[in-house]
């Protein structure tokens, strides 16, 4: 990757999003179009100014982004559909960022959208034998990792249940969240067992919805006061020897990796942005399963390995804490619209940096980070600065 000095500054000029929920009566392209039109209005721009579009989704299929663009206007621009599992939205954002940073385009659209299909979903994230052996259960694959984490650091079921409690409390302050009702520790710990030691309320719900962004050069901006700079947008994939049970990958016994995929993405993002974890005022981390947020926070460098449970109890990751995490309720409250999830995170951090997050506003939020993962595996880090 070229150093920041050799690429152009890219700013988020406008943001738009639907509420996250269940939309049996709306098509995915209608959800995406709503987010795009919102983002255009927010940027105070006309559709004809947008030079290229990157549309992320997992299950919407061939030409789905084109369907969304057709609802906004056919101007002949290049439209690229991006499927990169749960990092699809973040990957679309990164491509739009690259289009502007490289100097090829001045104004680009990124949108993530999803409407979960009904019935069985064919999976290509596992090998056929793994599917037949029943190794494709997402909570179970997290459970394998959770058990290792618990044994290594002495973490308990109560520790990761407190993640759910925190995120559902934040979600109650977010009018866009799918779940807006807080839950108690007892409710979490008494919810149905899904895959030991994980229970139903440790798992994020699915959701439909869309979020979109207008990215451009500073010169193209209409409203300079609300613009947020993309300080880094980094994507990594699997590293040799690291287990990713979500893709049927086990640890190499003989050749363990020197650095994990998430750690690598974080290192590269901090390096590019010229800052570190200590500079982040608000973070959106990957909580598709509650315990995942604990080790994600650690892998991203916000504390030492095994320390997250204690800091969580001390309130460090609360909205008014030192490192507010998943201020919009995370995947656990917002819901997980696979291909749109990364864009949902970016939407929240932009709101926070603009000071527009209302009752869940983190104080003095100047710099924020979003982390998505997903089958592949992928790890995406986006750092935004006011």
């Amino acid at each position: 990757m070229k150093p920041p000095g050799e690429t152009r500054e890219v700013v988020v000029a406008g943001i738009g999003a639907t509420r996250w929920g269940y939309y049996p009566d709306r098509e995915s392209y209608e959800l995406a179009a709503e987010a795009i039109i919102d983002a255009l209005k927010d940027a105070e721009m006309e559709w004809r100014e947008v030079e290229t579009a990157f549309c992320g989704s997992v299950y919407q299929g061939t030409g789905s982004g084109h369907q969304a663009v057709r609802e906004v206007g056919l101007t002949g621009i290049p439209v690229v559909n991006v499927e990169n599992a749960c990092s699809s939205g973040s990957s679309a954002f990164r491509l739009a960022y690259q289009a502007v940073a490289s100097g090829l385009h001045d104004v680009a659209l990124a949108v993530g959208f999803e409407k979960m299909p009904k019935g069985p979903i064919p999976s290509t994230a596992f090998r056929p034998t793994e599917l037949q052996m029943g190794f494709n259960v997402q909570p179970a694959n997290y459970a394998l990792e959770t058990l290792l984490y618990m044994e290594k650091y002495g973490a308990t079921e109560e520790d990761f249940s407190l993640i759910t409690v925190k995120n559902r409390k934040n979600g109650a302050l977010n009018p866009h969240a799918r779940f807006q009702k807080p839950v108690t520790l007892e409710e979490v710990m008494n919810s149905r067992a899904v895959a030991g030691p994980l229970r139903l309320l440790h798992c994020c719900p699915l959701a439909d919805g869309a979020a979109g962004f207008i990215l451009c050069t500073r010169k193209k901006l209409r409203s300079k006061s609300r613009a947020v700079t993309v300080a880094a947008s980094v994507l990594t994939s699997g590293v040799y020897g690291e287990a990713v049970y979500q893709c049927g990958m086990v640890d190499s016994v003989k050749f363990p990796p020197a650095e994990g995929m998430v750690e690598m993405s974080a290192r590269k993002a901090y390096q590019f942005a010229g800052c570190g974890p200590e500079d982040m005022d608000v973070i959106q981390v990957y909580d598709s399963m509650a315990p995942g947020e604990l080790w994600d926070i650690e892998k991203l460098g916000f504390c030492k390995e095994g320390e997250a449970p204690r800091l969580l109890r001390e309130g460090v990751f609360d909205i008014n804490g030192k490192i507010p995490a998943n201020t919009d309720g995370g995947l656990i409250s917002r819901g997980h619209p696979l291909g749109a999830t990364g864009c949902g995170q970016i939407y929240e951090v932009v709101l926070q940096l603009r000071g527009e997050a209302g009752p869940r506003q983190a104080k003095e939020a100047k710099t924020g980070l979003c982390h998505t993962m997903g089958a592949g595996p992928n790890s995406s880090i986006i750092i935004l600065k006011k």
Partner: protein
Amino acid sequence: MECGKKTVPLREELWTASGDQAGLIGSGCTLCGEIFFPKKKSAFCPHCQHEGLQDATLGSRGRITTFTMVHQQPAGGFYKGPVPYAYGVVQLPDGVNVETLFTGCRPDEIRTGLEARLAIEKLYEEDDGTEVLTYKFVPTV
């Protein structure tokens, strides 16, 4: 396995022989020594990129490194075995981790660190009564 029942393996070349002689079939790299399970059809080693993978029969005993118990039917309809079921990872002395189903004990008896031995067992039964076999590990409880 009942006498006279027709059986088919879930997939060819996952294991060799049967009963006490059974062993999983992996691939070993002649250059870097890495071991893969299941075996790879290509000779190309994705660890060192050397074109030197050869079939290797793996040891039939190992240690459980992690496990879980699944209480719900997996999505997609690919899995036709019983629910609930337990799966996890067994580390073999050859130096390779294997993702596997567990069998032969109560789910609450499974622990990390326990020894486990390979067993070739029924995964499910086809409509015509044919038993589809797969590899599993039996924890020594």
